[in-house]
């Protein structure tokens, strides 16, 4: 004996589908946001390995620009800052330098800003051996951090900015920053909110790092001829000057 007539069953299925549809984005889900990071030189497109003119008209050839970014947050118009646990290694010599953010929550969101840590958070930095990561390819793992780690006691290199002034003879420069005191945060707000749909993967945020501004800021200019090198521990004042310029050199692509 059945209690359901064919008509009743069809109605039940339709109602269930409607209910499922209506509540689909109310359950916990994850959306993925891609943060693309490009490099410019004084507002112009730039490729690592090229040279650009510095403030004194000298050709500065930038040969390596890499950085760790972490402690991301997106600003939800209604909820405020949503923290996202991500560490990424950016290599600006690659065409698709980016970080992927997994945003958990329910429903669609309206996003109008991004916050990004420049460096490796303190709790993941010193006394952490890259060899301790099970996945060697993790950005902080043995392979993933190749060339971006000083040693288990000194921690990770947050940013590497290397090149040379093409003078005669050429003048190499190297600004390597690390250490918790060099950690900076950059906060960038959009002109208008953007829709982050539930479970979507197509929202992209395009950021730009102006490599010229990493040496030339409103209140400070680093002349590689006078200040060619810091590895933080050996020249902390210069490292701090560089990270402050670096922090100001980020913007959202128009």
């Amino acid at each position, binding site marked *: 004996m059945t209690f359901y007539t064919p008509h009743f069953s069809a109605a039940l299925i339709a109602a269930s589908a409607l209910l499922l549809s209506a509540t689909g984005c109310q359950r916990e889900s994850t959306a993925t946001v891609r943060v693309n990071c490009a490099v410019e030189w004084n507002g112009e497109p730039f490729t690592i390995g090229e040279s650009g003119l510095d403030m004194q008209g000298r050709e500065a050839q930038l040969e390596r620009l890499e950085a760790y970014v972490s402690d991301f947050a997106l600003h939800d118009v209604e909820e405020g800052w949503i923290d996202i646990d991500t560490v990424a290694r950016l290599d600006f010599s690659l065409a698709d330098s980016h970080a992927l953010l997994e945003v958990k929550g329910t429903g669609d969101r309206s996003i109008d800003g991004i916050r990004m840590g420049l460096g490796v958070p303190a709790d993941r930095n010193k006394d952490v*051996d*890259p*060899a301790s990561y099970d996945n060697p390819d993790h950005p902080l793992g043995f392979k993933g951090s190749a060339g971006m780690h000083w040693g288990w006691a000194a921690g990770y290199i947050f940013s590497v900015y290397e090149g040379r002034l093409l003078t005669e003879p050429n003048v*190499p420069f190297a600004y390597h920053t690390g250490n918790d005191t060099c950690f900076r945060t950059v906060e960038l707000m959009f002109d208008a909110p953007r829709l982050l749909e539930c479970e979507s993967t197509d929202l992209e945020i395009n950021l730009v790092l102006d490599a010229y501004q990493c040496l030339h800021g409103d209140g400070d200019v680093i002349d590689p001829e006078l200040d*060619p*090198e810091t*590895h933080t521990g050996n020249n902390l004042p210069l490292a701090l000057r560089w990270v402050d310029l670096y922090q100001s050199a980020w913007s959202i692509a128009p």
Partner: protein
Amino acid sequence: MKRRSHTTWVLWAVALGWSLSGCDCGEAPVWEPTPYALEIPPFFPPMDIPADNPLTVEGVELGRLLFWETRLSEDNSMSCGSCHLPEVNFADPAQYSTGVTGAVGTRNAMALINLGWASSFFWDGRSPSLEDQIRDPVPHPSEMNLPWPEAVAKLQADGTDTRYPERFFDAFGTTEISEDLVVMAIAQFVRTMISADSKFDRWRRGETDLTDSEYSGYQMFLREGGDPEEVPGGQFGGDCFHCHGEAGLQFTDHLFHNNGLDPSFEADPGRASVTGSPLDSGLFRTPTLRNVALSAPYMHDGRFQTLEEVVEHYNSGGVASSTIDPFMKYTTGGLSLAPSQKADLLAFLHTLTDTVFVQNPAFQDPH
């Protein structure tokens, strides 16, 4: 009397034949390779072993035989081990290796040590995997000079006690030998060639002490280079750790650098021959410092015979060029190390010597 039908006789004959032939064949051989229990030393990272070439006891054993197999050369005179001698850290004490035809190579043979953690191979990094690297020397005209099909045919026709077809079956489940399987077996063997028993390793594990000179040399290794009067932030250190980083105790950053050997690069463009980028001219892969005291001669072209010469090169700051690494202090008088500091640095470098590794019976010639 009833006569048996023709059909019955045929059935009997078939049954008899089947029975007899069944007894002759026996059971098909079963391929049951034994997983190799690779021990990762303390403070070492996990080894990234390709999923399609897991280590097996049979594969490693076969790889060892092949590594030392002279039949992989044109005139049966050379094996991999001919240019990678155990006593010199599985490298070649000659500046350049001489191949079976008498042709001489153009770069010093690299040491085979802890390559399971390497991310590129050869001085210019042209091979992205160990398997890819191992393909090169057998047919190379300046090395073993034997086309792979001929090398494979020699192994396939093996009638000696080595029984290669059987060993390939034990390792890979087939008696059909191929170039791919040969390089896979050798790669398995090379991945087991792990050095982790130097004095420095034992000190790191808390099992022994370093002498004052060795410890002082270690601190030199970790300090920034240069006279602070000349180099902002200089610490009169050796500045070694930037490129020979101790992450995972491998003493290499796995990157490519121009360490100021030459003013131009016509003789050997290094990494640029792979990437085509002028920025990579004169750049070579950073070798590990493990067993460096056993690995002479030094540099990609084996130009330095002693560690003292190497230290003196870095102390001088090197030769200016368009791609010299910013770490080289060539514009500011080099490292400015005092004789006692150089002696300490050398003492530290000797703590990276691992004679257990080079004498390990598991890596020696089994033929």
